[in-house]
């Protein structure tokens, strides 16, 4: 099967701090790929580089055949993303948020109207389509963001901790939608999470990143076998250590700010 994501030697440095350190991996078309790591390991920085939000210091990323740095526009059409933090306009309704996205992606009204309706039905928000997003619960916002990420028929869906702060019921629903999407529309899923049971339920392959380096890639069974543990959670802790991590991402960001200030 062909690779839909190809990452080579991908590196991001903030001054002297290396957030992502020469990582290599690939994801196959239609695969559900989990990208794991402790807080501050470099997950979000990697996703930002894969999704054109951040320029790599070194290395190349190819998404659906497009070089991310050289062809940002084509790349952007090929993926949808649900960010770790909410990214909806609270002052607009659910439908308007979807419509904004559709027009931004150059979709015409006859195409986006039925698509928005079917996606809102899929995530069970159709009844609330004309409600302002500011009145939505965390779970509803998440579902809307997933629907929005799928609006332009992306080949890849990035989900950065999509179930953070949600109750088990909502988490279960969200993963059910995602599972169905992957099966029915063959959307490649690239996700991060700290819930190992979600990984066990969803992922076909896993990469674990720590201190900016990928320490292992493989199927769940392979990783458990290599770590010599009984469960994925234990394997994860064994491979990445049991110490609590500093949020190195914010350290990196601060360092970046300091460097920027010095350069001004």
């Amino acid at each position: 099967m062909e690779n839909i994501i190809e990452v080579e030697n991908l590196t991001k440095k903030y001054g002297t701090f290396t957030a992502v350190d020469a990582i290599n991996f690939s994801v196959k078309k239609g695969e559900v790929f989990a990208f794991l790591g402790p807080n501050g390991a470099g997950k979000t920085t990697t996703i930002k580089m894969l999704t054109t939000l951040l320029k790599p210091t070194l290395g190349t990323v190819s998404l659906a055949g497009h070089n991310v740095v050289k062809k940002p526009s084509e790349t952007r059409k090929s993926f949808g993303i649900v960010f770790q933090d909410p990214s909806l306009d609270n002052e607009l309704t659910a439908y308007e948020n979807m419509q904004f996205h559709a027009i931004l992606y150059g979709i015409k009204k006859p195409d986006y109207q039925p698509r928005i309706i079917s996606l809102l039905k899929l995530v069970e928000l159709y009844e609330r389509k004309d409600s302002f997003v500011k009145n939505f619960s965390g779970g509803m916002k998440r579902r809307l963001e997933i629907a929005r990420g799928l609006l332009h028929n992306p080949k890849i869906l990035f989900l950065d901790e999509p179930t953070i702060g949600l109750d088990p019921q909502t988490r279960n629903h969200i993963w059910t939608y995602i599972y169905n999407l992957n099966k029915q529309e063959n959307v490649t899923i690239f996700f991060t999470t700290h819930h190992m049971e979600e990984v066990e339920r969803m992922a076909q392959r896993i990469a674990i990143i720590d201190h900016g380096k990928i320490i292992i890639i493989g199927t769940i069974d392979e990783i458990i076998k290599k770590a010599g543990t009984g469960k994925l959670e234990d394997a994860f802790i064994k491979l990445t250590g049991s110490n609590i991590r500093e949020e190195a991402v914010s350290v990196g960001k601060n360092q970046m700010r300091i460097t920027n200030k010095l350069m001004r």
Partner: protein
Amino acid sequence: MTAIYILWLRQLKRFIRKKASIVGALGQPIIFLLAIGFGFGPVFAKAGAGNYIQFLAPGIIVMSVLFTSIFTGLEIIWDKQFGFLKETFVAPVSRFEILLGKTLGGATVAMIQGILVFLITLIAGFRPHLASLPLAFLFLFLVAMLSSALGAAIAARLDDMQGFPLIFNFLVQPLFYLSGAIFPIKNLPPVLDFMTKINPFSYGVDGLRYAFSGVNVFSPILSLSVLCGVSLVVILVGLYQFSKVQL
């Protein structure tokens, strides 16, 4: 093009839905008209400078446009903080289109606010030449574009609203007070004279006053050129700042 349209429409929708802030933003111009307009009116007339409301009204309209559009531009900081900017940044749209959509949206919103204030000045006794209303709107629109772009360019550099008092007190207020909006800019002390002349909004106020009352210090062509030129520069600076924004 459709991306610019939807960004513009979003600004407009957000503006129209915040009815309280539309009314709230009328407070300051009304206070200026009543307290300063009628308060200084007699002194102004005694000095032989004519009707002060007639002089002040264009300045007050520019004030409302300037404040509204700079703040709309600064709203980009909220978009950063609440994550919405990420949604626009990962879309297949150039940063230039995003900036232009935002700037046009901010300018349109400010124009609406400016027209409301214009109607209020009419009630207060302002009597403009209605024949040159299109020229007046052109000046207003340029002022709106300039301030909206300025707000966006500043917002690109800021991560939160903490720098807001600094911008308001050391940039927005001086731009307004040193624009000849509330006093004539003829025969000023040299420092003040210099500061009003390098302030692009002086040309906006003067141009608007010319369109409304036929009174001017600078030639209207000069005023138009300054506003267009500075707007262009600010948009280019904003674009550069915007291209460097990392989320």
